[in-house]
């Protein structure tokens, strides 16, 4: 059952097209994500799940429509920075970690943008790494990790600044079934422990069914399942 907290993110009649309007991906999409919720955006590849996450995260701008995240407008640069530094965390299908850096250094990256004190950051890094079972791997380089470990590192990085909303774009998409299941369970567990809302884009029904709500993305529109 879905918790009924305050609305953290909303999209109203959002449209987005690519290739000079030739490919329309979102056609009047509407969504609301409340505090503490884990919402699945479920749909086939290319249905517009990632695009909606990018718009909510301020990584892209819609052709039209209204967006609001944590009371801020992700289309405004200053708001975007505040969102990314304080309120949002991102996890991608590919971990998008920085090669050659260690697990510790990768998890710390968001703290560099905010200038968070080193000691405090280090404490948080340790705590998160321990929670995801990477406490003993902190000084290992990314190249030395398995796919699942890399994705767990990426989750820690996304959670470092204690965001209120986590945008997860197919976080299990590049993992095998078993590892994917482990990573999803971990993500869900952390979200609940840290009271973080999650908007999860996935094409796998089994993960969508474990979320509080499922929104199916089809033909650029969203419908509750």
């Amino acid at each position, binding site marked *: 059952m879905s918790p009924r907290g305050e609305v953290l993110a909303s999209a109203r009649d959002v449209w987005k097209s690519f290739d000079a309007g030739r490919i329309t991906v979102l056609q009047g999409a509407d969504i609301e994500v409340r505090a503490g919720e884990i919402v699945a955006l479920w749909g086939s590849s290319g249905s517009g799940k*990632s695009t909606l996450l*990018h718009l909510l*995260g301020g*990584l*892209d701008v819609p052709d039209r429509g209204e967006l609001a995240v944590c009371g801020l407008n992700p289309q405004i640069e200053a708001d975007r*920075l505040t969102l*990314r*530094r304080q309120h949002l965390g*991102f996890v*991608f*299908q*590919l971990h*998008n*970690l*920085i*090669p*050659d*850096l260690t697990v510790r*250094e990768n998890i*710390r*990256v*968001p*703290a*560099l*943008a*905010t*200038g968070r004190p*080193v000691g405090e*950051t280090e404490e948080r890094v340790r705590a998160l790494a321990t929670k995801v079972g990477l406490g003993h791997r902190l000084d290992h380089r990314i190249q030395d990790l398995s796919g699942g470990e890399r994705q767990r590192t990426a989750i820690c*990085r996304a959670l470092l*600044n204690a965001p209120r909303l986590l945008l997860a774009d197919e976080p299990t998409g590049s993992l095998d079934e078993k590892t994917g299941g482990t990573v999803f369970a971990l993500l869900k567990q952390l979200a609940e422990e840290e009271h973080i809302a999650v908007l999860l884009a996935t094409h796998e029904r089994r993960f969508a069914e474990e979320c509080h709500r499922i929104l199916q993305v089809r033909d650029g529109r969203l419908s509750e399942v």
Partner: protein
Amino acid sequence: MRLLSLVFLNLRRHRLRAMIGVAGISFGVAAMLTILAIVTGAIGMFERILSSDSHYLVFERNVSDLFFSSVTSAQVAAIRAQPEVAEAHPMLFGIVSSPGHPVITCFGIEAGDPRLKRADWRAGSRSDFGARKGEIFLGARAAEFLGAKAGETIEIGRGTFKVGGILRNENGFEDGGVFLPLAEAQDFFHRGDAASVVAVTLRERSRGPEFKRAIESAHPGIIGLENREFSQSYNSFKILNFTAWAVGICSFFLGGLGVANTMLLSVFGRIREIAVLRVCGFSERQVAALIVGEAAAIALAGLVVGFALGLTGLAILEHTPQFQGYVQATIPPLVVLGIIATALVTAAAGAVYPARFAARIQPAEALRYE
């Protein structure tokens, strides 16, 4: 871990690229340092030859080079007759050659010339100078490279001379040169009774303007300049200085292109990574600062390596016998500051486009195609 540490981490991760950038800058620094130090040192040595503790230099007006200047013995006498003048020492410059040594500077001077007094006589003595006809006196380094000893006969130009003495001089040009009594030099170079310059010491330095006015109005063909004034206005010095700075700055452009290339490659190879930094909350300014910081670190490392290389190169040149002691590097603070400023400006200029490009990377665009 602050932004600076990410700068160093990135340089460490892309060490080969960073090292190429450092090599480019250090090449520029070393080249500029070497060229400027040699030219500044050479100008300094030449200035000291000319001034020789004097206050004024008198030479022919409007000559392009002092080697072509003629101050007649009558004019020298008139200078000496001026009440402001304590001493006046004429000197004739010439270039001679000997087998295996195409360029040897020759100085025609009088026996009372202060440089003979100052010199450390290795063979013979000052009283021998001009005492016997057909004798020349060698700077210690000239004696070395000519393989000549006092009393031996050597061939200089079309003449054969006996070595009357050998004198050690601090000035590289003088130490690598040949001294002749003025009258013999005038005869040897077919210059009649002319000297190239006259170094004038005044009784009171403050009376310089009076001396200058008197001598220039009585002899419109000659000009008197204070030593400092001369150094600043002498065309050959200006050309040398300009050339040195121009060559040095050109070599820096190469280094700058190296940095630009390194940084561009670095940015192009990290588009996705930079997009992730933006997603993690880095502002456009922070991304640009990261790239500029990497370029600045490359420039600083290049400066350190370049100065080390340049100083080592200069030390080797100074002790290379083939240079006959003509290399006496001088590194004034202005040159050091100029090199540092050029290196930093070049690196910054090389980083502008990559930094701008990096700051404008659109995260969604960069991350879309996974």
